[in-house]
């Protein structure tokens, strides 16, 4: 850590001994008693911990890639950092605003026009009306759907839907960006455009938290890697070391 004042030393994200518990039989029987008994720490049968005892800090401006096989808790970790699920154990401190590229089309309403939808979604992520007014044209230009601004959202093609959703979140001025594998959709040209936008944001000093299976993308954006296996953080090291270890574990 370079010499600096207290704010420079403060991590953007600090995760301390975090864990989350799910029940295996989804929608299983629950009694009212269960709800009021408080959180007890014992692991009951039928429950499992997709993540447990996870600790790490992320400094502002770092680009972190999360690596692991399917079902090892990558997306859950991203959701915990995004604050859309809450940990059952430990703490997750996110000290700056977050622009989550997770389920990006989730906030869009079929019956409203693209314009209304942009105002809604950007507003829900904390942009004021005036800020949106100022960026509206940029958002539409980025998504390349200028002709469809007053079309109901449901009439857009699925590619357009993703484009407009990405364009809105990418315009948020938040210091932390979370990216799940949303970019697997869309044509190659648009994906490249999204990647360039992410690089731009990274150059602007943003903190990136990136979940992907694509080794090339991980090496392109990230400097540091987190390797998750069986719900535990196995390795926290430079991204190349993490990928080498991952490949050694599973591709040999």
């Amino acid at each position, binding site marked *: 850590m370079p010499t600096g004042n207290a704010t420079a030393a403060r991590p953007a994200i600090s995760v301390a001994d975090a864990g989350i518990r799910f029940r295996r039989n989804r929608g299983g029987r629950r009694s009212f008693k269960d709800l009021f008994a408080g959180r007890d720490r014992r692991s009951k049968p039928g429950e499992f911990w997709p993540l447990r005892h996870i600790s790490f800090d992320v400094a502002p401006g770092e680009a972190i890639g999360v690596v692991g096989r399917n079902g090892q808790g990558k997306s859950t970790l991203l959701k915990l950092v995004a604050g859309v699920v809450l940990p059952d154990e430990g703490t997750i401190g996110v000290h700056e605003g977050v622009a989550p590229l997770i389920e990006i089309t989730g906030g869009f309403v079929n019956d409203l026009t693209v314009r209304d939808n942009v105002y*809604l979604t950007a507003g829900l992520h904390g942009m004021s009306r005036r800020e949106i007014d100022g960026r509206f044209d940029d958002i539409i230009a980025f998504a390349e759907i200028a002709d469809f601004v007053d079309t109901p959202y449901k009439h857009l093609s699925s590619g357009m839907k993703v484009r407009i959703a990405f364009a809105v979140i990418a315009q948020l001025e938040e210091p932390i960006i979370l990216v799940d594998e949303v970019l697997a959709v869309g044509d190659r040209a648009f994906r490249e455009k999204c990647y360039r936008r992410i690089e731009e944001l990274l150059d602007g000093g943003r903190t990136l938290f990136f979940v992907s299976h694509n080794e090339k993308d991980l090496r392109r954006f990230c400097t540091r890697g987190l390797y998750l296996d069986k719900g535990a953080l196995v390795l926290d090291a430079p991204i190349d070391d993490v990928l080498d270890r991952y490949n050694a574990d599973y591709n040999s």
Partner: protein
Amino acid sequence: MSRSARYRHALWILTVRDLRVRYSTSALGYVWSILDPLVMSGIYWFVFTQVFRRDVGEEPYIVFLLAALLPWMWFTGSVSDSTRAFLREAKLVRSTTIPRTIWVNRIVLSKGIEFLAALPVLAAFAIFSGAQVNLDIVLFPLAIVIQAVLTIGLCLIVAPLVVFFRDLERAVKLVLRFMFYATPIIYSTTALPDRIEPFAAFNPLSGIFALYRSAFFPQELNWHLVGVSAAMSTVILAVGLLVFKRCERSVLKEI
């Protein structure tokens, strides 16, 4: 933006969205929100003034009816919609971090706005039927506040529990239908048999509707009812906040 400014900002956005969606998809829009209570009160007016010989309620009966029926629509609409508060918006809940109580409060708020927008209907009927307005009309805002507290409290209890017990959705609809007759809407608390009347206070809506009605019928005002209803509403809100807090973590995992 400060925390409370952000809260209000997000609450307002979602409320407007609710209203806009409701009105952009139907040709009649606003008319629907007043048509429902109008048809209902038309039916009750016909049954109780033209068919049966009625000895409950006050004159003019249509004003007596609407003064409770409109707020009832707000109450029942909010509570029954709150059963889908998380399920209908699951994708959005999963992708934003706004305080989760907003998902419930925006329902109560948007239904409340529809209630306010329907009040001119009550005013129109009051004028046409020659009902006397008196000073108690200043109590209207108090009634709105108590009702908002009660409704938010109940919705905070119902919304998260439905996520775990889907049956609750139907149970709530059934209870609401029962409540319609167990609440002084087509009759007045004073019309209840003496044995039952003391218990009427334990339906918090009794006191609230008495307050609304006192604007036209001062004899309906009963401070005992209002006091019990205000106290119960506060307790229900406290319980609601507690239940909501306890369930929040599990709700987010479940949806």
